[in-house]
Each structure stands twice: as structure tokens, then as C-alpha cells.
């Protein structure tokens, strides 16, 4: 076709790199996150001809891919990241695994050495498609320049369709440079969402109608069906549990909401699962952090499992009624003909469990997290890193809308939160993008502070809960390893986080007690720029309730006091849990 390499450029014919940008632009991709290098230089050269696509230079490829994930999680649109060959590509590995486990639509583009050098252990060569085979939904090496735009379009389609996931496209350098004269493809139409079979819907409704103690569980696959699922729960008057990934799919303010299930779930959620006679699980994969010991999970319930991905149904828990369907389609179908049934005993029981929720009243990590999340508006995006602060935020924050809670659920990636908050903040510059991190995780990707300055990002608010420990590991060592605190103390070596922020031209604030905290939060949130707040909290607080690894949900430890009184080796259950913890 002899297209130009970019707008206003008639000097050069289009090459593979230009075709890549043209295809991305055709797919409505406005922002990509990346880091240049030798084997991707033609792509960065061609970028200069595509001003309609904004490239965000991260300070590490891991920062770039987590930012792309944050973008995708906040918007539901595909996140795109770019890296060079070898070390650039391998730095994406953690983010790809993270996106795979959390079903994030992501396109990763990597450069590679020229085709004639592939397989020779050339400089900065790594077999990235081999490396990422188990942690991508699909991946490609582009073998001919004529195929490049088609492969990119197909990769985007695969990443977005069905159960979303990451797709990697590896492009040898000579293909980026080769002349391209084909058509630039337009986006594929999105395939229709699978609907549940009418007879399956009828059976599910029959089960719900006869249920005395029903409960609904919503996972990460439900975030785009929140209104329909809310209507479904209200129509049947079924209490709702949202998993860590499903927080926001049902409004926290609704009396039917029971909180989060699992290892650090609420008393109400875990007891309700343990007592339920019908459990309607939608868009979730029954992760072990959710189920606890599988043969003790929902032991009295008939389980209806609705999922788009047939392979998830029956993978972990026995399923009485499998429903392969899109969450929204299932919600609509199940709502039709719903019957509101009075179940006063079940409701009374649930209210009693809900009343057992203990709010943090004394100074500590929980108190600090609650003070911060209480100040959030429903539109604010809340990200977290991984650890105690993550579980506290998940327990204490209230979510009225989906896609306002961003965290690394499946992989538990420390270092995820801050770059993800940057990606989310760039996707929605009009809202606050708040991240709660620990002193450990923040130091894994803190170099992205530079990204805030470079792109004048003003809406990212970083809160570091500093307990001078790798707190979650310390909690496990306390409970299951007789307080042998092995390699978890950071206090002597932590930086001055306020000075650190200031070194990157980011304003820093600090609070060290309950009296200082409100004013510090005010100053931090009201700062017209992105800002950092360090909250210094006592070292040894734990997160409760807690279901020890390997225990059933009904064996949960409800409060810290009970954890202290239950010596790890006194009961067979905790002994088993200790064994499990050692293996974990």
C-alpha cells in the first residue's frame, strides 16, 4: 500500500515497527508503558511518528507492566507494555504471571535479536516465548513482517476475549526494520458472551427457592456485572460475599453484604459459607486462600458454580450444578422469576456474626489503614501492595463500585501496588489514585517515584504503613514458628521515606501516632501534587480474623487475643496448620 511511516512522514516507507504502532492506534490504544533497549529500538524510533500514542517511560520493566495492569484493572481495557529483548523481557515475567492469575487483559511486546541470531545465545537474547509459555494466555514470535499486524490484532483479541489474560508478542529486530506494505487490521468484533442453558437456570432457581441458608459469592470475574448481580442478590434476598478480587462487585453499604471470605475474611462471610445450604459462586476460581481446607469448605452446601472458563468448574471444589456462562448473562437469567423468600432465622444468624466484626480502636496498622480508607470517596481508586496492609485495606475499606480496588490477588506480588496505582491514575486522571503499601513492598518498585515527576502525575497518593517488618511473614513466624523472626526485620535499614520522596520531588508527610494522623492525612490528600504519607506503626500487630493455612474456614481465629492464647502446638488443627505453613 506504500503507507508512510507515520503522519506527516513521506520520506520513508512503513516498516514493521510502524505497522505495530499503526495497529495499536487502530485498536484505540492511547497509552503504553515501557522501557527501550537495543532490540526494540526500531519500535521506539517509529514511535516518534505516532504522537497519538503516549509512551510512559517507567524506571524498570516491572514498573511498566504493573502500571499497564493498573490501567487495565481500573478501566477494563487492555494494558500494553513494551520491553527490549533478554533482560528487558525477563523483567516482565513477574507482571505476566500476575496478570495470568488475576485474568488481566494485557499485551506485552518484546523485541528480540534478529532472526539469523535467534538460537545462537546472541547478546541480550532470551527465549522469552519459552520462558513465558506457562504464564501467558498465548504467545507469539513474529516470523514474517507481513504477519505482524495480524498477530498483534489477534493477540489483542485473545487477551480481551473470554477469560482475559496476558499475551506476549516477541518481534525480532530485523522484522521491526523490514518494509511492510500490507493492510493495517481493524479490531476484531468481540465475541458474544456465553449464556447459561435454560434448563440449568431452572435447576439453579429451584435450588435457590428451596434454600434455607443461601449465600452468594462473587469473584474477580464479576466486576463488569456489578449492577446485574446486585439486582440478583436483592431480588432473591441472598446475602453476598465478595472475594478479594470481587470487592466492589456488590455495594459494601448494602445490608446483604457480608464482607470477604477466606484466610483473612470476615467472621460473617466465613461462618456463612460454613453453614450455608446453597452456595452460588460466580466468576471465582476457589483459590486456596478463599477455601481454606477444601474438604471443610461449605460442607453443608450444594454449590452452584457459574464461570466463563469451563476448566475452573470442578477444578478445586465439588460442584453440584455447573453453569458455564458469562456472569452478567447468568445474573440476568437467574433474576428473572426471582422470589423473595423470608428466611428470618438465617438473617438473624448473619446479623449476629456481623456484630462480631472488631474494628481497630487502638493505634496500629489497622487503625492507620482505617483512618485512610475512611477518607476515600466512592470514585477514588484504592490500590494496595501485598501483605498485612493489603488484608487490612480489604477488610476495612468500603467499596460501592467495581474497578475501584486494585491489588495483586492471585500471585501476591510485592512491589505491585505503587506502579499499578500510577497506571490507574494515568487512566483516570480525574480521580484520586491512592495506594497503601508496606515498607517492604514499596522498596521493590520505589524507583517509579521518578515517573510521577516526569509525566506531572498529580493524583497518585502513596501511603506507606511502616512497621519496620515484613509484617505478614513476621505474623506467620509468630504464630507457626514460635516467634523465630528470621530475616524479616527492616527497621535498621529502612530509608527515611519522607526524604526519599523529596529526593524525587514528591512531597512527603509523616505521622507516628493517632494524634498526628488526621492532620497528616489532610495535608497529604490536599496536596495539589502526588504525595507520600509515611505512617509509623508498632512493629508486632497481626491481621485478624485469620484462618491458618491448612485449616477449614470454620476453624478461624477471630481475634488477636485468641491467637495469642492458642499456642501453635496445642491443638491438632493448628499443628496441621503449622505443617502446612512450613510447606507454603
Amino acid at each position, binding site marked *: 500500500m506504500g503507507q508512510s511511516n507515520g503522519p506527516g512522514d513521506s520520506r520513508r516507507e512503513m516498516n514493521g515497527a510502524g505497522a505495530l504502532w499503526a495497529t495499536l492506534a487502530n485498536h484505540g490504544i492511547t497509552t503504553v508503558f515501557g522501557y527501550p533497549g537495543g532490540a526494540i529500538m526500531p519500535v521506539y524510533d517509529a514511535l516518534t511518528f505516532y504522537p497519538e500514542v503516549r509512551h510512559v517511560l517507567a524506571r524498570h520493566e516491572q514498573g511498566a507492566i504493573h502500571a499497564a495492569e493498573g490501567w487495565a484493572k481500573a478501566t477494563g481495557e487492555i494494558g500494553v507494555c513494551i520491553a527490549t529483548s533478554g533482560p528487558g523481557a525477563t523483567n516482565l515475567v513477574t507482571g505476566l504471571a500476575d496478570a495470568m492469575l488475576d485474568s488481566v487483559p494485557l499485551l506485552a511486546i518484546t523485541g528480540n535479536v534478529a532472526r539469523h541470531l535467534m538460537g545462537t545465545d546472541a547478546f541480550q537474547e532470551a527465549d522469552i516465548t519459552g520462558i513465558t*509459555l*506457562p504464564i501467558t494466555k*498465548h504467545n507469539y514470535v513474529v516470523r514474517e513482517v507481513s504477519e505482524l499486524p495480524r498477530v498483534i490484532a489477534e493477540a489483542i483479541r485473545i487477551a480481551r476475549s473470554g477469560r482475559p489474560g496476558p499475551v506476549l508478542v516477541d518481534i525480532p529486530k530485523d522484522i521491526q526494520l523490514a518494509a511492510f506494505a500490507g493492510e493495517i487490521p481493524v479490531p476484531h468484533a468481540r*465475541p458474544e458472551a456465553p449464556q447459561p442453558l435454560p434448563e440449568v437456570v431452572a435447576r439453579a432457581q429451584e435450588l435457590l427457592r428451596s434454600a434455607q441458608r443461601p449465600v452468594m459469592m462473587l469473584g474477580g470475574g464479576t466486576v463488569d456485572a456489578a449492577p446485574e448481580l446486585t439486582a440478583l442478590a436483592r431480588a432473591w434476598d441472598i446475602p453476598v460475599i465478595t472475594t478479594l478480587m470481587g470487592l466492589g462487585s456488590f455495594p459494601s453499604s448494602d445490608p446483604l453484604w457480608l464482607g470477604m471470605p477466606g484466610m483473612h475474611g470476615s467472621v460473617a462471610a466465613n461462618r456463612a459459607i460454613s453453614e450455608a445450604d446453597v452456595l452460588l459462586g460466580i466468576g471465582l476460581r476457589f483459590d486456596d486462600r478463599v477455601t481454606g481446607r477444601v474438604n471443610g469448605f461449605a460442607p453443608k452446601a450444594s454449590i452452584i458454580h457459574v464461570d466463563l472458563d469451563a476448566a475452573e*468448574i470442578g477444578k478445586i471444589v465439588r460442584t453440584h450444578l455447573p453453569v458455564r456462562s458469562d456472569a452478567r448473562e447468568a445474573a440476568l437469567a437467574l433474576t428473572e422469576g426471582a422470589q423473595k423468600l423470608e428466611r428470618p432465622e438465617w438473617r438473624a444468624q448473619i446479623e449476629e456474626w456481623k456484630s462480631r466484626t472488631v474494628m481497630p480502636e487502638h493505634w496500629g496498622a489497622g487503625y492507620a489503614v482505617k483512618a485512610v480508607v475512611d477518607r476515600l470517596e466512592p470514585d477514588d481508586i484504592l490500590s494496595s501492595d501485598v501483605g498485612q496492609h493489603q488484608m487490612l485495606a480489604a477488610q476495612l475499606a468500603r467499596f460501592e463500585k467495581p474497578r475501584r480496588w486494585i491489588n495483586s490477588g492471585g500471585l501476591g506480588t510485592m512491589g505491585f501496588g505503587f506502579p499499578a496505582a500510577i497506571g490507574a491514575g494515568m487512566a483516570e486522571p480525574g480521580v484520586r489514585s491512592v495506594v497503601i503499601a508496606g515498607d517492604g513492598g514499596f522498596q521493590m518498585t520505589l524507583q517509579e517515584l521518578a515517573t510521577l515527576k516526569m509525566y506531572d502525575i498529580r493524583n497518585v497518593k502513596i501511603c506507606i504503613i511502616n512497621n519496620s517488618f515484613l509484617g505478614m511473614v513476621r505474623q506467620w513466624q509468630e504464630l507457626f514458628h514460635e516467634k523465630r523472626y528470621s530475616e524479616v526485620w527492616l527497621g535498621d535499614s529502612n530509608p527515611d521515606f519522607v526524604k526519599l520522596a523529596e529526593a524525587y520531588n514528591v512531597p512527603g508527610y509523616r505521622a507516628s501516632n493517632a494524634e498526628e494522623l488526621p492532620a497528616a492525612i489532610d495535608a497529604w490528600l490536599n496536596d495539589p501534587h502526588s504525595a507520600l504519607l509515611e505512617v509509623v506503626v508498632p512493629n508486632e500487630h497481626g491481621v485478624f480474623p485469620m484462618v491458618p493455612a491448612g485449616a477449614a474456614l470454620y476453624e478461624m481465629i477471630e481475634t488477636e487475643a485468641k491467637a495469642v492464647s492458642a499456642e501453635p502446638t496445642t491443638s491438632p488443627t493448628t499443628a496441621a496448620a503449622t505443617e502446612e505453613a512450613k510447606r507454603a
Partner: protein
Amino acid sequence: MTSETFQPQDHLISILVRDEPRVLTRITALFGRRGYNIRSLSVGNTEHPGVSRMTIVVSGDRGVVEQAIKQLEKLHDVVRIIDHSLEKYVDREMVLVKVSLTPETRVEVRQIAEDFRSRIVDVGRHALTFEVTGDEGKITAFIEQMRPFGILETMRTGRVALTRGSNADIPTQVYSGDSAALTPAVEPREEKARGVPNLF
């Protein structure tokens, strides 16, 4: 000639895959990662350019096989999976067996080989190499018969299988012969899901 010699924990499946680089790795890596055990694997081209066919013997209980099939279904390169436990099929395996010979055993070894309708493919002074084709039971029986004489080497191909009857596992209307046309034509999951014990 079908499944009477099957070990109860073995399941025979065929996987039709797009003939793309690394597709064999993709399939075997999935088995490895998920902890499914492959007892035998054979791969070859099909009558359709761009499509290869694998026959895999998976060991494990019914749940393992169902989960393996469902996970395989998700791979982009997988065109179709046939679970042979759901329909009648024929299967064959070939083996080369090198048996040691002495003047005293020569006649007996040849006689056994004849009984099994085996072909001699190499004749040496001290050894004969036989080719045997048949189902797993026949091959195992042949090896057992030869064992007392001294087996020097064996090589089994792994099993191959086809569904009985006149239906082709790849409907010809799906194919135009070029692999690019393959993608949209086989896209509907219902089409792919044939042979999977369907829960839905």
C-alpha cells in the same frame, strides 16, 4: 482389538493442533505444570496442511482426564480434542524388538514371530530385529514371549488412534487447506468441545 487391554487408569485422547512452532512444548508443558502424567505420546501430520494430530495416553482418574481436557481446550493452538472413551475407536502401536539368537533358539524365535504376524526387519548373526504392530496387549505379549531368549533393545512408537466409522474428526467443511483460514472456521467453542464430557 480395542480397550480390553487398557489399564483402568489410562485414557486415550487425540488432540488436533495447529502446526505452529512450539505447539508440542505447549501441550507437554501443560501436562507437566498441572501434574498430569503422559504414558505415551505420538505426533504426526494429518491430511490437512497446518494441522497435526497427537495421540496421548494420560494416566489418572476420570477427574484428572476431564480437567486435562478442559485445560487443553483453552490452548489457542488446539483445534479439537477427542476423548476416545466416549466412542468406538481403533488403536495401534508399533514396536521394534531386537532379540538375541543362538543356533538352538533360532527356530523357536522365528516361530513365535510368525505366530504374532511379526516381520523381520533386520537379520544379524546373533540377533533378529522384529517389527510388530498391534494393540498394546499384543505388543506386550510379544515382548513377554521373547524375553526368555534375551531382548537386546526395544523401541515402541506409542499408541495412535482413530475413531471408528466414516466420520472424520475434522469436518472437511471446516478446512480450506490453508492454516490462516483455520482460525475463524473453528472458533466456536461448541465445535471444539465435541468429545468432552459435557457438564453444561
